[in-house]
Structure formats: structure tokens, C-alpha cells
């Protein structure tokens, strides 16, 4: 199997790895680095594996690990400054039920709040529309993000 050496900035730290060219970024983050990035559908439908690449939210299952070379990747663990207020808002609004989709929703929320600190409900719904929650707790997510924006 063809492999390549890559170097990327992961959650603020420079990391080097040799990865198979067929490996997805989602798999590298979860299995290679042991991060919380969930993998569900593996084909870009559910949004669970979303991470930030150079500040932009992307589906890590639709990006090869080799393509992350030279890029700054942030998973949930890298949202240090935003994480406490998001966790508090998600918890208070019962946005997390089984929690499987939470990393993806939090990445979407963090990315939205970075570019638009005071989003309206329609903007929030638009920002999270690519994310599936199998417990169907969508209203909880919307109110949690509205709450997080208030702080």
C-alpha cells in the first residue's frame, strides 16, 4: 500500500505521520491520534466527523489524510477557548442525548459563532443543516447555540 509522510498542525501542535494514501482524515484523527472525532456514515451524509481545516468546517471523512498535509486541523479538542461555553449551553439545553453527533454539532456551532457572533435562529438552522442527530434533538441544538451566542 502506498504511503506518504505528512506534517500538519493538529489542535495547535505540529505533528508528523506516515499515512496510507487511502486513509481518510477522519480515520487518522480518530484511530491515529485518538481524538473524539466520530465516524458514522463515512460518506459525507451525517456531519458527525466535521472538523475545522484552516478555519473552515469540513467533513473529515471526505478528505484524505494526505490532503491535510501543511494545513491547520482543529478537532473538538482544539476549540479550547470556545469549548466551555458550548458545553455549558449544550448541557443546559439538553442538546446532548446519546452524544454521538455532538463533536460535529459543536464544530458547526464554533465555526458559525466565529464568523457570526450573534446568529439568528434561521442562520443557526442553516449552519447545522448538514448534521444528523439520531435522537432528533435539533431544537435543543438551536436553543443551545442561541444561548452560547448570548454569553
Amino acid at each position: 500500500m502506498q504511503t506518504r509522510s505528512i506534517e500538519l498542525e493538529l489542535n495547535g501542535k505540529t505533528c508528523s505521520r506516515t499515512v496510507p494514501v487511502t486513509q481518510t482524515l477522519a480515520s487518522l484523527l480518530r484511530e491515529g491520534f485518538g481524538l473524539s472525532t466520530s465516524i458514522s456514515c463515512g460518506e459525507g451524509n451525517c456531519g458527525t466527523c466535521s472538523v475545522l481545516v484552516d478555519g473552515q468546517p469540513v467533513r473529515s471523512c471526505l478528505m484524505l489524510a494526505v490532503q491535510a498535509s501543511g494545513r491547520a486541523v482543529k478537532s473538538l479538542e482544539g476549540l479550547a477557548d470556545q469549548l466551555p461555553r458550548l458545553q455549558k449551553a449544550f448541557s443546559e439545553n439538553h442538546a446532548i442525548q446519546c452524544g454521538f453527533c455532538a463533536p460535529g454539532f459543536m464544530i458547526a456551532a464554533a465555526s458559525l459563532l466565529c464568523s457570526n457572533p450573534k446568529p439568528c435562529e434561521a442562520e443557526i438552522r442553516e449552519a447545522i443543516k448538514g448534521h444528523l442527530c439520531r435522537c432528533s434533538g435539533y431544537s435543543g441544538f438551536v436553543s443551545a447555540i442561541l444561548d452560547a451566542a448570548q454569553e
Partner: protein
Amino acid sequence: MGFKKCLLLCLRLDFDGWPNSPGMFTYSAPTSIEEVLDIVSEWGSRARILAGGQTLIPLIHNQRLSPEHLVDINGVRSLDFIDLQEDLSVGACCRQRDLEVFLRTRQQHALIAQALPLIADREIRSRGTVCGSLAAALPGAELPAVALTCNANLRIRSKRGAREISATSLYREDGTVALAPDEILTHVDFEDDDHSRTAIEELRYTQLSFPACGAAVLVDSQNGFCSSLRLTIFGQGIPAQRINEAESFVEGERPSTELVDELATRIRKEVRVDSVPGIPADYARHVAGSLGARAFKRAVAQREAVTAGAQ
């Protein structure tokens, strides 16, 4: 072996064979267009171009495509550009999101600006490229329909030479794309829409599915008469297509309720529809007429509002 250990092993095997890798292929990341052309000429139909990968990777994952080699063009700097003079030129590596943000503050190319936010979701648009969507032309994708409506020109290169073709020649009647395996779409030019009024309408079953049906419209009018109309219908069972006879029927007419109703009827007669699961052909044809008429009505209403505002 204990039950727990067996279960863990099964899970482990599952993860190794499944999301870990979308398929088996080799990979190259050239940095110049000449190298890309060399590679695709050598591999032919066994290779695929990887730009955003938002169409390609799911297709490989679903085993609907099994390329032996992926050519990643993201390292070719000369293909990553947006150039807006009067025409809009977009390179093969330009992300849909970048063009969306670029056009947000500009008055030109309204149809593209309206269509981009409708594509999938924020995460897909961050990676997905404009040219990738045009070259893949999945049924229901917005950008091929926009290219047809805007009379876009596509610049294509291969080791055999360069050629330029219109969107109407690129998309064949059966929905396939006239691109040879050794060719690459390097950039697309959208001609200046000269502040025409535009609208795009869609019907989706769910927020994330491709539209079952959609209509893109570009209208020019003079003194209250419609001087030209370009109308494209697209959808999951509808190869993106211009509705030429309905377009010429409207030209020279004054927009009215009767005209809009007649336009819907003519679209339903003219549109070529394939039946797909969940979207019967008759239904798709009916919706195509309604959406086409609605988009036309909305575009024309804009024209009047702008003229009234100017007076």
C-alpha cells in the same frame, strides 16, 4: 475466545475495512498542469482527478467508482483563482464557498450567487469546487444548470491540446458529460449577465437531498416586454436542459398571469424526464412546469421592482 474479545475483534475488523479507507488506489499530487496532463494521459480512464473530492470520495466509498489512481490537483496553484472583469472566470481548484463569499458583496452574476448557497451544506461547500461540480454533473446539481443558463464556456485541456466548449455542448441529452478520460476542466467562464433578473427555484424532499426538481431563469425585459428568457430545468430524474421552445414562446410577450400559466404548460410538454425511484416522471414534469413558471414570475417581479425603485 471469549464473547467480549470476539465482539471487539469484529468491531475492529469493521473499522479497518470501512471508514478507514474509501477504496484502493494510488495517489499523486503534481504541482503543475503539465504534470497533471502527463499523469491523466498515462492512466486514462483508470485515473480520476481529485479536487474537492465531495462527489468523488462518496462514489468511491459506495463502490460506484473504483479508480486505480487519484490525481490531486490542489497543489497546482495556477488553477486556484477567481477573476472578475465583466466575465467571471473560475479555476478548477476554486471552492464553492470561496466563490459564494466573493460574490456576496458584488452586484454581478446574481444567478451564481443565488445558486451557491443552495448547494448541499456549509461543510461540503468548504471543500467542493465549482469546476468539480460542473465536471461530475450529478443529477440535480445546481451548477451545471447555472452554467447552461448563463451560457458558460468551459476550458478543457489534455495532452492532445486545449479546447473550449459551451455548457450546452458539454452536457449531452442523456445527462452524460462530453469529457474524455485524459481531459481536465481547467476553468470556466461565465459571461457577464448584464444585470439581468434571475431566479432559481427548487423542490427538495429533505434539506440535504439533491433537488427532485429545480428551475433556473435569467430574464431580460424592455419597456415591460420580455426581450429574452433563458430557462433551465434540472433535477434528480431530469438531466439539466434548456427549454428552448418555451424560451422563444415568451420572448416579445408582456408578462401576465396567462403567460405564466402557458409557460408552465409548455415546459411540461417539452421537458425530457427520466423516471427515478420516488419521483414518477409525470410528477417531475408537472413540478418542472410549476417551478419554471414560479422562477420566471419571481425574476420578472424583481425587474419591475428595480425599475420602479429607479424612478
